[in-house]
């Protein structure tokens, strides 16, 4: 089956939903990882399967899945990321015929015990994949897979550094296109294409439409639609970093290689720049401050998806922590559909004006 927009290697595809999924294992088992996004239109069918008070990501994913929109996936790997995700797993398992369904248990927060546990979880997952494919994942194959993703991350960083410049040499929506493509593609093929792009694009010219726009960091609940970024850019910002599971932050993970590859992966994933489920709000604030400096940002928009407890609970405290650091922050909440964004336009524009007045 050919799916639009995918750089496919004709491997069977494994869907995944959470940034804590060890893609290396999926790839080493012979699958092409495919990130499930749902959609950003009004939800149609999900309410017949789940309570309406679930986030757009979960509801729209169900929408697509129950209409066979994901039937090109051979399997799906879920993570026990949040309450909503657990229920997504349950609904999927009941209503969407899929050959391989798995749920990984990832601890909240970092601890030495958690580290040991995540390794056993990854090992269990590896065995489940091996049992399913009747193929043992050899060490070399896993190491190769790790290397492929290391290269992807490093290539992404090279692209992302183009945003250090002011005005940035690449705009946010372009980066989001690249990121989204990564989520759907065979990483090896994606790597090759990015390398090509990096060599041919001299990128020393800047587009006139992005000059003088304030530089913005986008943080918060996962955003799956490139149009979301374009919308904010059209309001008058340059998005220079996405502190999102679905944006630049996704690539912020460090692999320290050693002999025990499962520990390597466990350590890397548990230690990655935390999302709100990891209950480390101070680290989240610190990270936002750091990237804000690193990318020389003028402001931050923190967007929470309606009904996303994980991020919404953090908002009041995060606001305090960021304001303490003298950062300009706008906290938004929407149902994640593009329609709902329009209602936020005035607030985004007002925020833009405040920042612009400070820049003068």
């Amino acid at each position, binding site marked *: 089956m050919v799916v639009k927009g995918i750089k496919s290697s004709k491997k069977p595809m494994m869907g995944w939903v959470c940034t804590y999924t060890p893609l290396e294992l999926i790839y080493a088992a012979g699958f092409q990882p495919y990130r499930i996004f749902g959609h950003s239109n009004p939800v149609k069918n999900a309410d*017949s*399967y*789940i*309570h309406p*008070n*679930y986030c757009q990501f*979960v509801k729209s994913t169900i929408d697509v899945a129950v209409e066979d929109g994901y039937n090109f996936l051979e399997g799906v790997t879920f993570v*026990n990321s*949040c*309450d*909503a995700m*657990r*229920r*997504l*797993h*349950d*609904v999927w*398992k*009941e209503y969407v015929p899929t050959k391989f369904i798995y*749920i990984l*248990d990832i*601890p*909240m*927060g970092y*601890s030495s*015990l*958690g580290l*040991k*546990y995540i390794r*056993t979880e990854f090992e*269990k997952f590896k065995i489940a994949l091996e049992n399913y494919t009747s193929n043992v994942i050899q060490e070399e194959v896993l190491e190769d897979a790790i290397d492929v993703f290391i290269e992807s991350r490093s290539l992404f960083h090279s692209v992302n550094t183009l945003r250090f410049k002011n005005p940035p040499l690449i705009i946010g929506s372009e980066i989001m296109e690249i990121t989204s493509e990564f989520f759907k593609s065979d990483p090896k093929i994606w790597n090759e294409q990015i390398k090509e792009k990096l060599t041919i694009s001299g990128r020393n010219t800047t587009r006139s439409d992005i000059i003088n726009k304030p530089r913005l960091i986008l943080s918060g609940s996962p955003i799956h639609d490139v149009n979301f970024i374009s919308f904010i850019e059209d309001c008058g910002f340059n998005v220079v970093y996405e502190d999102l599971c679905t944006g630049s932050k996704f690539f912020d993970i460090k692999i320290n290689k050693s002999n025990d590859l499962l520990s390597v992966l466990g350590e890397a994933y548990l230690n990655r720049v935390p999302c709100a*489920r990891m*209950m480390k*709000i101070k680290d989240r604030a610190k990270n936002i401050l750091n990237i804000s400096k690193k990318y020389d940002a003028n402001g931050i928009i923190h967007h929470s998806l*309606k*009904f996303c*407890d*994980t991020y*919404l*609970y*953090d*908002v*009041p*405290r995060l*606001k305090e922590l960021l304001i303490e650091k003298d950062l300009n922050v706008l*906290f938004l*909440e929407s149902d994640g559909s593009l329609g709902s964004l329009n209602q936020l336009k005035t607030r985004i524009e007002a925020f833009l004006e405040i920042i612009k007045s400070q820049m003068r």
Partner: protein
Amino acid sequence: MVDYTLLKQYFFQLEDALKHKIALKLTPRRKFIYEIARIGIRIFDKNWSNGWTTVFVPYEILNSMNVSGMFVEFFGAMLSGAGLSRKYFELAESKGYSTDSCSYHRTIIGAAMDGLIPEPDVLIGASIPCNGGVKALKRIGEIFNKDVFILNIPIEVTSKSIDYLVDQYQQMIDYIEENTGRKLDYHKLKQSIKFNNQAREYLVEVNNLCKNVPSPSISNDLKNFIMYILLLGTKEGVEVAKNYRDEFQYRIDNKFFGLPEEKYRLLWIQNRIQFKTDLINTLEDRFGANVVIDELNHIWWDELDESDPLRSLAYRMMTHPLVGPVERRLKVLTQLAKEYRVNGAINPAHWGCRQSGGARVLFKEALQKVGVPLIHLDVDCVDERNYSHGQILTRLEAFMEMLTASNF
């Protein structure tokens, strides 16, 4: 300066009122609430350290260290029951806490901001049943500038995952020792497991007695019995359980049934509605419908191993029906429906409960398979500001009429 006189008064008055009532006549319900009030009073007792927790943590360990564990959802329920929660919702919401979140948690966040609760010595949150609980506890920790100890409850039972939880319990003990100076008395812990096993046996009997048609219990005899977890592993817990067993046995022997004209037997899913409504009376008086089993009152665990307390407590926690994927819970629900011979099930479908709402259709279908219809009430069990009595009543009536029709 924080002022928690209100809370202190509440528990002391409750204790006092029940003491008088018990002097007039001892009933298991009175004894139960009396003991819960005494646990509330412990918050102000210097011989105990204060532990704020989420609902499912190992109270046996806390009790054995003289740490008075109190789960935050309890306060949501209590304040709502006392008609006092509005102020705290408004306060939390004014600080940006979403009205879409679980109101059990929103109340306690507001209450903590308002200085209603005394400073905790320790804060212990578990990853089940829901993420909101840990987030709320984190907020309380921030208010008091304290760390929160988080227990990650593994979703699958394997020998390694049990080890992981046992190790976490060990770390939790260290954390409590560090923050309270209180040591774990293993002898006391073992004794507490012994009490737990005794109480468990009585509770299994209590539940079995309620399988009787008609049931010896009435809908509110075991309402909010989830609070019983605070008494697990205590002598008082054994007494309460025994009182219930004796009373229900007596009722059966003497044919005093909860609802003598019991026409319908109902299963209640998750929590009850906490603020005052007369829905239960309506069910009983108008329809002869009796809630004979609350999902959360099910005793899911086997006898604990006294020689290995931490491991058996870990195993008990990990096998809780609300842990992990919903399959386990569905199995329990259908099992309860069959064993208690219920005619229908009520799910309040508490607004803001992300743990449960996503499985509502699965509940309905699983119960349908065993011939039990289910109604989702779609209420917020704690926040009565949006409660529309007429609307809920109409839905409930329609449901009861449907049951009546299918009975003929």
